C-alpha cells in the first residue's frame, strides 16, 4: 500500500513539475550538460584536427602528427565532440564497461545537434563494428548505440555491411604504428554493392590515433564509398 502511495506521489509530481535535469557528466544541476562541463570537457573554444579529430588550437587545421603524415588518410574528416577526460571519460566508461548503454540517450540531442553543425549531411551512418564474440559477451556495441541515437535525432539511416572478422589485442598500450598494423585485415565489407557511391559518417565512441577509423575507412573506400567522415564522442588533446 505504501509503495502504491509513493508511486502516486511520484506520478503527481511529474504531472505538476518538470523534473530538473542533472548534468550527465558531473551530477550538478543545469543538465543535461552544465556550463562548467561544457567549457571543461567539450572545449568549444578549441578546433578539431581534420585528420584525426584531436582537439587542437583553433588556428590549426591539423595536429602536428597529421601534418607530418602520421595520421589517418582514408577519411575526409574526423571530428570529436569533446576531450577524453574527467566526466566525459567516466561517462563513456559507464556506458561501455558498466553496461549502461541507455545512458547515451541522455546526450543524444546535444551531441546530434553539435554533429550536424560540424559535418556535411550524408547518405547514412556506419558504426565501427565489434567482433561477434565480443558482441556476444557484452550484449551490445557502444558504437551502434551512438549511431542509433544519431539516427533517432537526425533521421539518418544506419547502413550495415561492415564486419569485424578478427579479434585483436586491445589498442590501449600500442604505439601509433603498432595500432595501424594491429588492425590490418580486421574489417571486411560483406555487401560492397550496397555501400557503393554513398557518403557516410563512421561512428565510434573514442579515437586516439584514428587507427580504427582508418582501418574501417580503408575497406569502405575499397567498396566504393565516396565520402567517409569520422565522428566520435571524445578524442585526445594536442599538448603545447
Amino acid at each position: 500500500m505504501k509503495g502504491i502511495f509513493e508511486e502516486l506521489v511520484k506520478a503527481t509530481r511529474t504531472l505538476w513539475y518538470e523534473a530538473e535535469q542533472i548534468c550527465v557528466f558531473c551530477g550538478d544541476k543545469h543538465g543535461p550538460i552544465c556550463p562548467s562541463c561544457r567549457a571543461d570537457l567539450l572545449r568549444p573554444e578549441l578546433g578539431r584536427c581534420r585528420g584525426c579529430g584531436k582537439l587542437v588550437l583553433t588556428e590549426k587545421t591539423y595536429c602536428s602528427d597529421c601534418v607530418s603524415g602520421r595520421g589517418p588518410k582514408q577519411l575526409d574528416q574526423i571530428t570529436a565532440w569533446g576531450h577524453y577526460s574527467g566526466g566525459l571519460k567516466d561517462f563513456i566508461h559507464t556506458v561501455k564497461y558498466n553496461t549502461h548503454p541507455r545512458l547515451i540517450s541522455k546526450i543524444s540531442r546535444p551531441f546530434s545537434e553539435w554533429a550536424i553543425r560540424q559535418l556535411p549531411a550524408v547518405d547514412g551512418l556506419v558504426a565501427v563494428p565489434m567482433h561477434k564474440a565480443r558482441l556476444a559477451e557484452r550484449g551490445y556495441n557502444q558504437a551502434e548505440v551512438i549511431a542509433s541515437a544519431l539516427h533517432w535525432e537526425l533521421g539518418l539511416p544506419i547502413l550495415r555491411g561492415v564486419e569485424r572478422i578478427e579479434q585483436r589485442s586491445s589498442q590501449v598500450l600500442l604505439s601509433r604504428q603498432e595500432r595501424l598494423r594491429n588492425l590490418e585485415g580486421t574489417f571486411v565489407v560483406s555487401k560492397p554493392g550496397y555501400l557503393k557511391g554513398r557518403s557516410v559518417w563512421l561512428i565510434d565512441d573514442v579515437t586516439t590515433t584514428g587507427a580504427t577509423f582508418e582501418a574501417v575507412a580503408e575497406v569502405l573506400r575499397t567498396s566504393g564509398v565516396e565520402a567517409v567522415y569520422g565522428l566520435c564522442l571524445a578524442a585526445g588533446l594536442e599538448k603545447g
Partner: protein
Amino acid sequence: MLFFLTIEDKYILRFRPFEERAIFDSRVVCYLSDPLPLAIIQWAAEQLTRGQARDFCGENLEIIKKRISKVLNEYSSGLDLKWKVPERSSSAEDSMTLGREVGNGNETWYAINQLVRGKQLSVRDLRGLAKDFKLRDREIIDLVHNNVLQGTALWVPSVKRNSKGWQCQRCGEKDVEEWPSFYGLAATCGSCGSIGPSTSLDVLYRDQRLFMNSSAKVLFQPHWRLTEAQNLASEQVAEFIGGTSDKALLWAACGAGKTEVCFPSAAGALEQGKSILFAAPRQDVIYDIAPRFQRDFPDYPVQVLTGNTSNRFQLGNMVLATTHQVLRFWQCFDIIFLDEMDAFPYRGNRALDWGLNHALRPGGKLLYLTATPSTEALTSVRKGEMLLIRLPARHHRKPLPVPIWAKYSGSFEGNVCTSFLIERLELLRRSGPLLIFVPKISWVAPWIKSLKKQFPYWSVEGSYSSDSERGPKLKNLKKGQYDIFVSTTILERGITLPGIQVVVFGADHPVFDERALVQMAGRVGRSAEYSGGEAVFVSKNMTPAIKTAVSWIKEQNKLALELGLIQL
C-alpha cells in the same frame, strides 16, 4: 560470461564455461557451437522441461535438438544455432590443466578454493582474483566451475527475469534499467553498480560452503572490563545468540560502549566454529573497530573489507565489512552484528538490507546496534518480531546530558552574532570547547567568519563533507586546538572530544531529525574526566524531532537509574 549448452548422455541438459570442457568431457553428446548467456540457457531449460528434471531419457536426440533450437529462437531470432559433436582425438591435450588437478594437492587451487568459500562473486571479482594469483581469467573460471560440478556452488544470472519482472540476484533490486541487447531485452542493475556491473547477460558465482569446516581454538584477551550496564546487555546478547529469536535490537546510549558488549558472544561463537560478520554502513566505523578486534582476538584471522581495501580476498571466520561489501557474501554468516543501522547509506537502502539478510545463513542471528533506532525497528520490537536489549548507561555511571532548548527568534541565515548568541556561547565556552552544528554546508563558512569577527581571540574553524582540509582539521579538533568548531552533521557520529559542549543552530531545520539530534547531543560528556557538559538546541520553533530527542535521552537516564546503573 557465456556458457556452452551441452547435451549429455541420457540427454541431460547442462552448461559449461568453455568449449574445451564440452570436448574433453566424454559424457557430452553434442553442444551448441556459440555460447549463450546463462539466463537464456536456464530459460530454455525451464521452457522445455516445465519445472521437471532436465532429463530427456528415451527421446530422440534430433528431436530434442530441434526443440531446443526452436525455444531459443523464440527468445531471440538473431541467434546462430549450430550443433556440434565433440571431436575427441587421443592426441589432443586439454589446455586447461590447473582445474584438472583438483584433489591432487595443487597449492594454488587449494588457496583459491579457501578464499572463495561462502562468497558471491561477479566475473569481474573472479578476474581480480586471477590477477592476484597471476592466473589467466579462464583458469580461475574453470577452477570455480569445478565447485559447481561438485554441487558446492552455483552459477546464477546476475539479473534474473521471472513472471513478476527483473530482479538483481546480488542486491535484490527490482527497479532495473532495461536495454535492447544482442539477445533481446536485457537489464542492468543500478543499485549495486558501485561494486561492479550486474546485468542479465552476466553471472554470479555463489559458493555454498561454510567458511571453515571445523571449530578452532580462539584466544580472547579483552583489554577492558565490562561495566555493570555492559555486562547486563552482554548477557542478554549471549541469551539471544543461544535462543530462538532470529533478530534483536541493542539500543544503547550514545558512548555506552555497545561494540564491546558483543565481543564475549563473538568469542563463544568463534570457538564453536561459527562465522561472524560485524557490518557498518560507514568505513570510519570499520576502521575504528578493526584494531579493537585485532587487539582482543590476537592471532585470530579477521577479514577487514571496505571500498578502499586493496586485498578483497581474505581468510577468517570473522569479517568486518561495510554494508556494500556484504553483497559479496551469500548465506554464510551464523551471526551478523550491524552497527549504526540508522546511518547513511544503509538506512532506507533496500539493496543493502536485502544483501545483509541474504548474507545470513538460514536460521542465523541478526543483531542491530544503535543509539538511535529507526521507526521500523521500534515497530518490529513493539510487534514482538524483534527482541530489545537496552544499554542505557555510559561506563562512567553519570547520566546523559539532557539537551536544553533555547528559543531564538532571530535568523541564522544572516550569520549575525546577536547578543543572545554571544552570551550563551561565552557562557558555554567556560565549560569547554564548542562544537556548533549547522544544517547546511552553505552556513559553515559565513558562520566561521562571523564568529571569528565576534571572538577575535578565539580559534575558530569548521568543516563539512566535501572539505579538502577535513582530515587535518579533525586531527586538530581532536587535539583540542579550537575554541569553536562549526560543522554539518558529518561529526554527529563516531567522534569523542573530551570536554566538548554542543550547540545546534537552527535545530528546527528538517535535516535534523530526532536521530541526528540525539547523536549530536551524544558528543557531550563521553569521557570519564569530562562526564558533564551541555547540549543546547537553538531554534525558533520546538519541533516534534526536538521533543522526541529530549524524551529519548530522558528515558535512557530514567531506565539507567531504575536499574542502578548511574548515580545522580
